[in-house]
């Protein structure tokens, strides 16, 4: 036991090393490939107007991916976000009913509703010990039914312009010309906040909880509340996404349907591990962006719409499989400390990551 002090204090690995060492680098590579593909197919996509239009479309999914990331990294699932987005848009339309003065109060109500749904999801999962897959599946059914029960089956009312500007409008310039979309600002702000949050004590506790909730509990983390907060964040993000989607495209009966699977796919594409404890929020956002870019690429390739799901399926499987394959040697390399550093304590490389370093 000789060398130590210096090694323990060793500085963080360099950025490049960190990117390639994590499993999420595939998503960045894929993102670049897809963007290059789009630009080759349609150079005008690079024009500011086109890019901003893309951002407006992609923003809600990116935000949903942030919310889903929190839940997944804590070791859970949130299948209710699609229904929640739909419910929120319908609530907004029905309560505002085109009254401009109602915009802000209703957005407040939406916020509370989103948090309430997250709270219920979280508490049922953590306190009643229902697997989150089932909790949120049930919540999905409840929201789907309740919102239609309330509106008699189809959305009623109308969204106000003040509400719609968030997803549709932007700063500088007038509609129909180049604008910096609010959606872009919101995504950037939320993305930065999320990345910061993951570096904050809460983020680290969340990650540790996803990795080993017993250890987190023994360290004084209120595990139920840590996870519930993840669901609250997911509900919050779904609300923001609902504001953006509602703003972008208005109310339809179908809004939000199936978004939960797209969001989970996006997060997994970003290298976040289902089951918790691994992955970065920025990569999850990149996953969402990649997925949206992929949809755009399909469009630019004039791929028949019917075959797109098939191509999407192949790409997702391939990307996730590819991210899974080269990990093993890479991990081993980091697992094995260089012999010079610590002659006194050669660590047996774990035969399987679960039970390392016995003796």
């Amino acid at each position, binding site marked *: 036991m000789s060398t130590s002090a210096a090694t323990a204090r060793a500085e963080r690995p360099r950025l490049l090393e960190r990117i390639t060492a994590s499993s999420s680098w595939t998503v960045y590579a894929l993102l670049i490939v897809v963007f290059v593909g789009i630009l080759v197919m349609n150079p005008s996509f690079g024009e500011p107007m086109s890019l901003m239009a893309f951002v407006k479309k992609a923003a809600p999914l990116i935000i949903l991916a942030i919310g889903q990331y929190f839940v997944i990294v804590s070791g859970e699932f949130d299948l209710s976000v699609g229904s929640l987005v739909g419910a929120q848009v319908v609530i907004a339309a029905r309560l505002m009913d085109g009254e401009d003065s109602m915009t802000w109060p209703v957005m407040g109500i939406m916020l509370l509703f989103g948090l309430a749904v997250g709270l219920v999801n979280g508490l049922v999962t953590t306190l009643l010990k229902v697997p989150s897959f089932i909790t949120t599946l049930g919540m999905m059914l409840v929201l789907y039914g309740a919102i239609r029960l309330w509106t008699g089956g189809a959305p009623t009312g109308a969204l106000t312009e003040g509400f719609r500007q968030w997803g549709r409008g932007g700063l500088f310039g007038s509609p129909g010309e180049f604008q910096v979309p609010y959606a872009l600002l919101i995504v950037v702000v939320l993305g930065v906040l999320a990345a910061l949050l993951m570096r904050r004590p809460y983020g680290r506790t969340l990650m540790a909880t996803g990795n080993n909730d017993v250890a987190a509990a023994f360290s004084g983390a209120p595990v139920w509340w840590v996870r519930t907060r993840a669901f609250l964040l997911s509900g919050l993000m779904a609300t923001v996404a609902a504001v953006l989607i509602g703003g972008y495209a208005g109310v339809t009966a179908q809004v939000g349907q199936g978004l939960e699977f797209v969001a989970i796919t996006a997060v997994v594409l970003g290298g976040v591990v289902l089951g918790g404890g691994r992955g970065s929020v920025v990569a999850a956002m990149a996953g969402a962006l990649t997925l949206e870019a992929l949809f755009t690429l399909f469009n630019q390739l004039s791929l028949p719409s019917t075959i797109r799901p098939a191509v999407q399926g192949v790409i997702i499987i391939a990307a996730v499989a590819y991210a899974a394959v080269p990990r093993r040697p890479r991990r081993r390399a980091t697992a094995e400390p260089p012999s010079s550093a610590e002659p006194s304590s050669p660590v047996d490389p774990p035969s399987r990551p679960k039970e390392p370093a016995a*003796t």
Partner: protein
Amino acid sequence: MTTTSTSRPSTPVVEPILRLRGIGKEFFGNSVLRGIDLDVRPGEVHALVGENGAGKSTLMKIIAGVHRPDAGTMTLDDAPATFTSPLAAQVVGVSTVFQEFNLLPERTVAENVYLGREPRRFGLVDAARMDRDTSELLTELGLVGISPWMRVGSLSVAEQQIVEIVKAVSYDARIISMDEPTAALADQEVELLYELVRRLKERGVAILYVSHRLKEIFDLCDTITVLKDGNQVITTATADITPDQLVRTMVGREFSGYFPEKDPTTVPGEVRLALQGVGNTQVDDVTLEVRSGEIVALAGLQGSGRTEIAHGIFGIAPFSRGRVLIDGTEHTLTSARQAVRAGLALVTEDRKAEGLALGQSILANARLVLDSVTPRTSGSRARRIPGILSSLDLVARSAETEVQYLSGGNQQKVVLAKWLVTDPDVIVLDEPTRGIDVGAKRAVYDLMRELTADGVAVLLISSELPEVVAMADRILVMRDGRLAGELPAGSDEETVMSLATGAGEESAEHVAVDLSVLAEHPEALAALPGASDAAHRPGGQPADRPVQQEER
């Protein structure tokens, strides 16, 4: 230090079943085993000892077929043998019982024993025969407390260990390797294991026994091989070596000085932690005090309620009766969080399950308590972590290394660091030196002295009597969920033992015999002596129930 095979085994010459010659193993150019020669003979218990990282596990894994050697040869029955997988080894009669149980808690004993080779009849699994065969095997090995149809998850740790061994035997194993089989066992369970090992020995099974506990090695083993830094230091008959010599061979340093002396300037101060008549479903009427600068040991058999006291204090399984006072103020702690806020720290018994997020970095783990409990100030307080880590002599590539890649000792240091950084007033250490190497143990002991010098109150829960006796200012002994008594510093192990076991008149002789061995090798006491069943079982329960039902 690289001399090998200085003496031949004193046991009658029996041809070895398994012969290892010049075995070497590298991982990514890092040599972890060099030139190991090993003969494993039927009916012989062969101990494999050495510090953590000496290469015992790697050698075992080579024999088990987990790893393949890079150099040297293995012969089984004089024929060259290469095991491509644990199963391949098992099929030819080489079984390994790892520390992590390879059992399915949701399945029955029989289903676990015959997993992967269930007997069939007309293509369907013959469950009746499976139960019957398992039952026979259990009876044969004298294990009547376990039935084939029991769900493994409902068994105690010891019983699960036994199921593992039964499984090995069911393969008609001729060689069984055991990796620290007693690490998680209570003492009367250890006795059961001893019995099992002896029976296996009688059946002519060769046993390869890895252990840190010298007592076991001298009790059980015929031959000892010592590894150090991947080299074979010595292979000798047990009779030809004393525990003192053995320890010296292992660590290359004298055994004295193992425990740091108490700093005479450290004197107990104010009462920091006081329990007054606390109890819940596991413990009852426990009253104790720990003062600042004092180490109070909580001794006792496993399952006597020590860990439950720790969990009660820490609010994990709160007390339902009595009062808990911290610095004189009554606290009702119902969560770990409140306990931390009140200035408590708990180093748990099970590092991997309760102490660490294995997939997270050293730094993240070391920050975990700060992040969880005092998020607002954790940023500034965490700046001390690198200093604490290096003062603990943590060996790692960088603070970003995931803790799953650290050795047991280094993992324990991370656990300690995460509590030290909270500046606790009271620290509860539950088996802090279990399963870690001598060097790391020493670091823990030094740390305890430093903490008391700084005025921290330390409650030490330990099964290792020398540790208890050498480190504690006062020794509290628990038995069956209650305090059995208090002993002053410097009490001898014998007194502690008899309090812990409640040894009555009729069993005094047995204990005395056991302890006479200890008296010869006090420094070798790495484990409590195995107490016989009758010794501490009040009410004279039937003796055909060797598996004492202890909570793990």
